[in-house]
């Protein structure tokens, strides 16, 4: 390769960084449109209430008010409701019970923060002031908040379509075979788990600007989106704002997403609709409390799980019963998360002959719940890795050896729950991690801690995830409303510079660098000559966006396909220019050469000839050098690895300190190790956050008690350790680059590693996430009593 310093595998410093470190990023809130107005939403202060009346007469007279709109106006304009794009059927074959989800309330509010009206004014301060004068007469209803009792007899109904608040009652796997295996088992391990509700909290709050061009009869929406084309599709085809060719969606620099910016929310829908209504651009920017109240939350499962083993500890079967909270409305992909992104991962890295999972999802009067970094897979990994750890302890076996004994050793491996794992080396990753973590020296470290009155523990997590989602036909058969391919267009300019238009979206992942590395290496041109263009539906024709660690495996594969076509066309141009047979043209290190001769042309020269078109006729070849491709993968990808967490607990204060973190991951081909390591760091931090700090608390009336950074435990620098990372790569056979994906791994792996370490230190299993100092202190008192008794 002519450009080893910028091609695949090189730790290239990021091209996008210059604008971010100099304050020249361009986030949605940095954009102002001429004549812009500002929107402020009147939100429900009640978790569950009927709206008897909205009186905005006094508010309309406030200074600067341009308009006040409610659900009545929305309905009059026939603006459709927000949708959930993944159909799930219950065990009995009935479709999920999707309640209506209007962007502004239609007579009823269902969670604190629900959208009642929008006040549009000259300034945001005037909009806020006027919103205070909007009088809403509510008839409050009993709130359904507690997940465990959300379907009990006598609780109030949130959506008429689901009288018992059950959205669907779904299952996966072979129930009969699983029961047979449990009957034959010598040991059964049982656990009850809470997977705590999390708030994604990307540092950039959501924002939107709607703009309407009356001359063109066309809308533009600037929005904080991970997938602007999906937003356009939903706003056009389902919500009915405008047909796609009259709606441009721009997602400029986006300050983190973690899943929360996949969805189409009420606010951007209202901004783009209202822009035409008031005849001026309408801008809305969330404050942090609005984000806490209304962004789609993550996780929130209650699970009972059981694992059956033979006398030696070989796993025979797993059965799982989960209740998942979907909040007050079905968010865009909410139904997929606790079903097809969850249960198919319950085999973990293990050879398990029988698995049966039942998942009941419910409505509650809380914020909608949808995919958050990992989405279903962290929940599955928590179940599997807590089960495995507890089983090993109950059997008196070393947890690492217990895992090794049960690991899958041959690929491809068909699990009993849909997935066919295609490549991996689970035992190899475990061996590497044991060494890197110096597990051999743990005993001494534990004794040293004990001398200082501290409790030290070691916890493992051997996670697997299915990502790079995924083959369109496969997800379609499982209920997805969209295909999950990706598109790319490679435009070679006459001077040999290259623009790549991609349907992936970068909001921290560094695509402007990694995607350019692929092009630089392949075409043998300096990386500075490559520009990656994304995030604008008027520039990029179509795309499915970035989530589920799919941009490398799927997005870059589309670029590979387009580059294949560019190279093929360029060879034709070179052959005509050098008067050689096309079959005799070689392309290497950025030069086209004629086999067996000293004739050659640089890539840039061929590009120029493609455009000047002097050396061939139109009959021989079409001028120009621009190719597009769509790529649909043949399988999911299966990143996997082993994380080892070592903690020290101070039983006097309950503070858990993460002393060491070791991760050995298999992400397949790594494009840029610096960026991949950064993704792992961030994922682990979010996983440690879930395990130790982050808990979303509603009171019994549905008021969110953790609605600011003062109340919600966002991990800070002094809460976290440095990380020790290793890689054990096996190429993914399902895409041309062999990429598996790395974006979610840390968040998936980390929570059980932390809890397994804490429970190892405590000597009992009685602790839930988040394991805050208060919770750990209580749990440690039990340990101290136990130790005293012994």
């Amino acid at each position: 390769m002519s450009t080893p310093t910028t091609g695949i595998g090189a730790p290239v410093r990021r091209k996008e960084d210059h604008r971010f470190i100099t304050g020249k990023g361009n986030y949605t809130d940095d954009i102002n449109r001429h004549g812009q107005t500002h929107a402020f939403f009147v939100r429900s202060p009640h978790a569950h209430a009927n709206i008897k009346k909205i009186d905005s007469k006094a508010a309309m007279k406030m200074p600067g008010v341009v308009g006040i709109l409610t659900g009545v106006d929305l309905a009059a304009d026939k603006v459709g409701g927000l949708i959930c794009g993944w159909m799930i059927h219950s065990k009995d074959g009935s479709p999920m019970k999707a309640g209506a989800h209007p962007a502004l309330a239609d007579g009823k509010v269902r969670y604190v923060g629900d959208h009642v009206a929008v006040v549009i004014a000259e300034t945001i301060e005037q909009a806020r002031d006027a919103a205070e004068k909007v009088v809403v007469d509510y008839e409050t209803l009993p709130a359904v908040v507690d997940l465990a009792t959300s379907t009990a007899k006598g609780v109030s109904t949130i959506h008429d379509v689901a009288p018992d608040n059950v959205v669907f009652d779904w299952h996966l796997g072979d129930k009969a075979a699983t029961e047979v295996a449990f009957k034959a088992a010598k040991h059964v391990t049982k656990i009850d788990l809470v997977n705590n509700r999390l708030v994604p909290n990307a540092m950039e709050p959501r924002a939107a600007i709607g703009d309407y061009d009356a001359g063109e009869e066309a809308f533009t929406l600037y929005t904080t989106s991970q997938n602007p084309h999906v937003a356009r599709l939903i706003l056009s085809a389902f919500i009915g704002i405008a047909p796609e060719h009259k709606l441009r969606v721009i997602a400029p620099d986006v300050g983190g997403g973690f899943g929360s910016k996949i969805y189409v929310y009420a606010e951007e829908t209202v901004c783009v609709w209202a822009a035409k209504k008031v005849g001026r651009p309408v801008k809305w920017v969330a404050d942090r409390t609005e984000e806490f109240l209304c962004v789609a939350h993550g996780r929130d499962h209650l699970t009972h799980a059981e694992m059956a083993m033979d006398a030696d500890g070989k796993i025979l079967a797993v059965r799982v019963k989960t209740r998942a909270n979907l909040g007050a409305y079905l968010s865009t992909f909410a139904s997929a998360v606790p079903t097809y992104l969850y249960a198919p991962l319950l085999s973990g890295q293990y050879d398990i002959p029988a698995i049966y999972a039942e998942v009941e999802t419910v409505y509650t009067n809380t914020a909608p719940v949808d995919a958050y970094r990992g989405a279903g897979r962290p929940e599955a990994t928590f179940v599997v890795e807590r089960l495995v750890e507890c089983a090993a302890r109950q059997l008196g076996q070393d947890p690492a050896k217990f895992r090794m004994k049960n690991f899958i050793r041959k690929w491809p491996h068909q699990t009993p729950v849909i997935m066919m794992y295609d490549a991996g080396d689970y035992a190899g990753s475990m061996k590497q991690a044991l060494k890197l973590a110096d597990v051999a020296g743990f005993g001494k470290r534990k004794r040293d801690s004990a001398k200082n009155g501290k409790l030290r523990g070691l916890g493992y997590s051997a996670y697997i995830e299915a990502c790079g989602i995924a083959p369109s036909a496969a997800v379609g058969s499982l209920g997805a409303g969209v295909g999950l391919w990706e598109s790319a267009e490679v435009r070679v300019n006459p001077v040999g510079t290259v623009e790549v238009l991609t349907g992936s979206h970068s909001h921290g992942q560094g695509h402007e660098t990694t995607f350019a590395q692929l092009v630089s290496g392949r075409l043998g041109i300096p990386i500075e000559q490559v520009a990656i263009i994304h995030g604008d539906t008027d520039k990029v024709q179509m795309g499915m966006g970035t989530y589920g660690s799919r941009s490398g495996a799927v997005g870059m594969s589309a670029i590979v396909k387009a580059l294949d076509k560019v190279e093929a066309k360029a060879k034709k141009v070179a052959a005509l220019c050098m008067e050689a047979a096309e079959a005799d043209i070689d392309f290497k290190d950025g030069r086209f050469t004629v086999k067996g001769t000293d004739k050659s042309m640089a890539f840039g020269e061929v590009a120029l000839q493609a455009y000047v078109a002097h050396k061939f006729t139109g009959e021989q070849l079409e001028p120009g050098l621009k190719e597009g491709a769509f790529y649909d993968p043949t399988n999911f990808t299966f990143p996997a690895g082993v994380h080892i967490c070592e903690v020290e607990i101070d039983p006097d204060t309950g503070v858990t300190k993460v002393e060491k973190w070791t991760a050995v991951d298999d992400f397949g081909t790594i494009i840029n190790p610096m960026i991949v390591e950064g993704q792992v760091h961030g994922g682990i931090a979010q996983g440690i956050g879930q395990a130790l700090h982050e808990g979303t608390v509603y009171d019994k009336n549905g008021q969110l008690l953790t609605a600011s950074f003062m109340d919600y435990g966002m991990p800070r620098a002094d809460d976290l350790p440095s990380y020790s990372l290793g890689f054990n790569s096996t190429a993914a056979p399902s895409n041309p680059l062999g990429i598996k994906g790395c974006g979610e791994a840390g968040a998936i792996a980390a929570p059980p590693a932390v809890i397994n370490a804490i429970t190892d230190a405590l000597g009992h299993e009685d602790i839930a996430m988040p394991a805050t100092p208060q919770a750990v202190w209580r749990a440690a008192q039990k340990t101290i009593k136990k130790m005293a008794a012994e």
Partner: protein
Amino acid sequence: MATVSMTVNGKAVSGTIEPRTLLVQFLRENLRLTGTHVGCDTSQCGACVVHIDGKAVKSCTTLALTCEGATVVTIEGLANGTTLHPMQEAFREHHGLQCGYCTPGMIMAAVDMVNRKGNKLDEHTIRDELEGNICRCTGYHNIVKAVEAGAAAMAK
């Protein structure tokens, strides 16, 4: 309305503002210096950190009027022309940023940290001092490395 005058990034500026205007609003909306960000409304996240008279301050909890006559430096004013400040360079070199949203505040806080604590900063000190700046992307690992390297480079 009231008028306020101050020096921002070496330039004398003034504006007529509502008394309730925060410094971050004055910087972003009046001066269109949008590198300073707002990430929360409780003075916790530090995305809005700027330097006022040489000290790191959260501009989301500072009234613009209280900065009358002050010298303010924002992320846009940190580089020396086209030469990046060593702390900016260190964040790039050590991959101390991903989405970039917290980055301006992180860099401004880090420069202030060096001004107060010197050029030899250990991991413990850096983590402790970053208490007022939240990042959701990086897990802080590379920010810590960047601050350590940037601090050392500032001595040169």
